[in-house]
């Protein structure tokens, strides 16, 4: 298990036994790893389920349920050697047939359409030459298969529970995995409880005997629960409370940047006014991102300069400081673009039409006070450039409708994919499933395809650097705002807490202990 954080002095040396209560922000929609869709649920899935691979700290892969793998020369077949002596918590054994059963299940109609259509798009079949070997055959080279196998969706579920679980898609106690803990109790809306898996295949079983995750949606409640000692660990500490926690001698605070893409505004180029690159640049440069972040996050946020999170291996540092916060330039660009008149409220107009751009946020998916952030940006672009940014916070149906109808000019998003390439593919590729910019650019597609076709880190990096420069600096397709981060706050008696190295989200509880 990839326990990241160094053991804290306060908690002393690891001890086995005891139990921990942990306040988490998000209640998972499902406990079935194949259906995983919420980054915030990752720490729960990892307790029970494991994939063939996992990420290492350098952005590469290390074996988990596999002992190793080979890639064929044409990049179209991947052979995995499986670990022996691993059993699922329901007592059935882990072998090649189980791996194949999972792959088949994932591609069964109606089971996991998003996985089948995106991550396994290029998979033609899985073969099991012997019980300890699995071969994945692809229709074309796709290194992202490895990322998939290290992701929660790629986790291996006991074939027995795939066949027998009553609410397979919802997961829960009926679903067995190979992880260090067993999910044995789930009270919806309240908490989920895990007990140690005594037959875990690793060098040792987990330290903790039991761990409970309580769903505390309100940040103030979460922090209150920690400070009043009702939970020992919380994740998702709002900016406003971070000072309070760091000042408390009984508590410890850590944070890590997430992998994947930064939180950014993607501009819709398919119609006016953002079909004009000058207006896009003006919008981008009208915002003093640092000041805005400071106001909203009180100095706790990490500014993003690129579409990718600075924590990842493909991040292009050279982009930093190269653009932005230039109200004078922004106003000049807008004048040039014909938005030179102003109306009574001080907004720019052209031909009597106000320079209005719309941002539609879907309420259920707003986190990190992104609604507040939007309001601050709104105020900033109004003040410095006379742009009318209209923000609406709506339900999912309305948001989807607005996106389908193209009734938006700004689309906000961040993705926590472990392989940043996956995020870029989805967001920027012409065929990307969540490409909302309406941008269709052959050269950009080519760069993205290059990045996905090879496993060579240097070549991928080069391709993705070009992508970042193009969409942020040159085309002003994206206004990056901040790098999403996860925070952990815990009582000092808790040791071994950390983040997953690549994903940057809180790690599973395998390496965690509580001092006596």
């Amino acid at each position, binding site marked *: 298990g990839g326990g990241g954080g160094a053991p804290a002095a306060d908690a002393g040396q690891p001890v086995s036994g005891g139990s921990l209560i942990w306040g988490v922000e998000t209640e998972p929609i499902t406990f079935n790893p194949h259906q995983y869709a919420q980054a915030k649920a990752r720490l729960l899935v990892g307790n029970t389920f494991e994939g063939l691979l996992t990420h290492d700290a350098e952005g590469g892969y290390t074996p988990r349920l596999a002992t190793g793998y080979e890639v064929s020369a044409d990049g179209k077949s991947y052979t995995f050697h499986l670990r022996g002596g691993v059993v699922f918590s329901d007592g059935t054994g882990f072998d090649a047939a189980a791996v194949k059963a999972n792959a088949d299940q994932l591609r069964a109609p109606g089971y996991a359409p998003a996985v089948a259509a995106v991550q396994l798009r290029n998979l033609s079949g899985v073969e099991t030459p012997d019980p300890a070997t699995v071969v994945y055959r692809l229709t074309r080279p796709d290194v992202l298969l490895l990322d998939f196998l290290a992701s929660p969706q790629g986790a291996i579920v006991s074939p027995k529970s795939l066949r027998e679980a009553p609410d397979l898609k919802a997961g829960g106690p009926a679903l067995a995995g190979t992880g260090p803990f067993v999910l044995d109790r789930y009270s919806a809306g309240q908490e989920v409880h895990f007990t140690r898996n005594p037959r875990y295949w690793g060098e040792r079983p987990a330290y903790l005997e039991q761990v409970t995750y309580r769903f505390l949606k309100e940040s103030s409640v979460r922090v209150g629960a920690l400070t009043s000692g009702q939970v020992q660990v919380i994740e998702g500490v709002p900016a406003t409370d971070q000072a309070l926690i760091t000042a408390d001698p009984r508590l410890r605070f850590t944070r890590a940047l997430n992998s994947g893409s930064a939180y950014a505004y993607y501009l819709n180029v398919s119609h006016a006014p953002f079909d004009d690159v000058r207006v896009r640049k003006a919008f981008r440069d009208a915002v003093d991102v640092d000041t805005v972040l400071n*106001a909203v996050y009180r100095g706790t946020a990490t500014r993003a300069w690129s579409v990718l999170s600075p924590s990842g291996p493909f991040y292009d540092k050279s982009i930093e400081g190269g653009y932005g916060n230039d109200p004078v330039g922004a106003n000049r660009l807008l004048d040039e673009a014909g938005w030179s008149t102003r109306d009574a409220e001080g907004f720019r107009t052209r031909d009597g039409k106000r320079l209005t751009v719309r941002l539609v946020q879907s309420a259920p998916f707003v986190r990190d006070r992104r609604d507040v952030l*939007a309001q601050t940006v709104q105020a900033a672009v109004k003040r410095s450039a006379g742009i009318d940014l209209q923000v609406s916070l709506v*339900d999912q149906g309305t948001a989807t409708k607005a996106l389908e109808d193209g009734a938006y000019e700004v689309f906000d998003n961040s993705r926590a994919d472990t392989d940043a390439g996956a995020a870029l593919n989805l967001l920027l590729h012409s065929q990307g499933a969540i490409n909302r910019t309406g941008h269709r650019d052959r050269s950009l597609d080519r760069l993205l395809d290059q990045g996905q076709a090879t496993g060579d880190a240097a070549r991928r990096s080069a391709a993705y650097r070009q992508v970042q420069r193009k969409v942020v600096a040159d085309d002003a397709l994206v206004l990056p705002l901040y790098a999403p981060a996860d925070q952990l706050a815990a009582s000092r008696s808790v040791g071994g807490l950390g983040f997953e190295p690549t994903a940057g989200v809180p790690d599973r509880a395998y390496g965690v202990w509580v001092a006596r």
Partner: protein
Amino acid sequence: MMRLPGPGVAASAAFLAVAVLAAARPSWLAADPLAADPLHVLEAPGAAHWFGTDQLGRDVFDRVVHGARHSLAIGLAATLIAVTAGVTLGVLAGLAHRYADEALTRGFDALSAFPLLLLALLFITIAGPGTAGLVGAIGIATLPHYARVVRAQTFVVRRAGYVTGAVAYGGTRLRLVARHVLPNVLGPVPVLAMIGLGEAVLAAAGLSFLGMGPQPPSPEWGAMLADGRNYLRIAWWASILPGVVVTLTVVSLTVVGRHLQHRFEGRDPR
């Protein structure tokens, strides 16, 4: 028998007057509610900012004053819908024959079977969050209350001596309804509506709290409360003060409404 209102009623009326002024001409009382000042975020109440500043450095007092328009307008619009529809349906049910009355009454029942919140949620999924959905939801949800009161009142008036007797003077049915029934049924409605307005404002604040109200950055009271509660620990004023204003408004509406109701009933021995 004219009695001067007590100090409570006078204070409430004065507060309402200020609230109405704030709704009508907020610029007389306060500055721009949207002026964000990132350098003065979450500052405590003081001479510069009477109610302190919020998470974006906006003046909470200015926002509360400007919010009066949104909150009162929502309450007023919702109450207007409820009263108009409720009175119409109530009078119809009160005058109708047994089956029509029964059908209408069941309709009111079905509406009451939705708690306000559920109704609001449904409405807002249709209309989208924002003022329209909020107004519609509260209007529809409070409609049965008026409808029932008016229906009962219509029953009473319809059977009152002056209505049955009026037939003896040779009036038509329509004339009877227009001259005797409607005016007597509608009498208590304005006062009811005034008390109902308080409830509507409260309901709007509740729904805004759940994020179903007017969109940011408009300074609606419930939304201010909801935004502010994240900062309760470090800046109580951002949520508590708007909350206090909501409470004061609703209390004032109720106090003045009840005072009028008592005077109204005092004059009318029925």
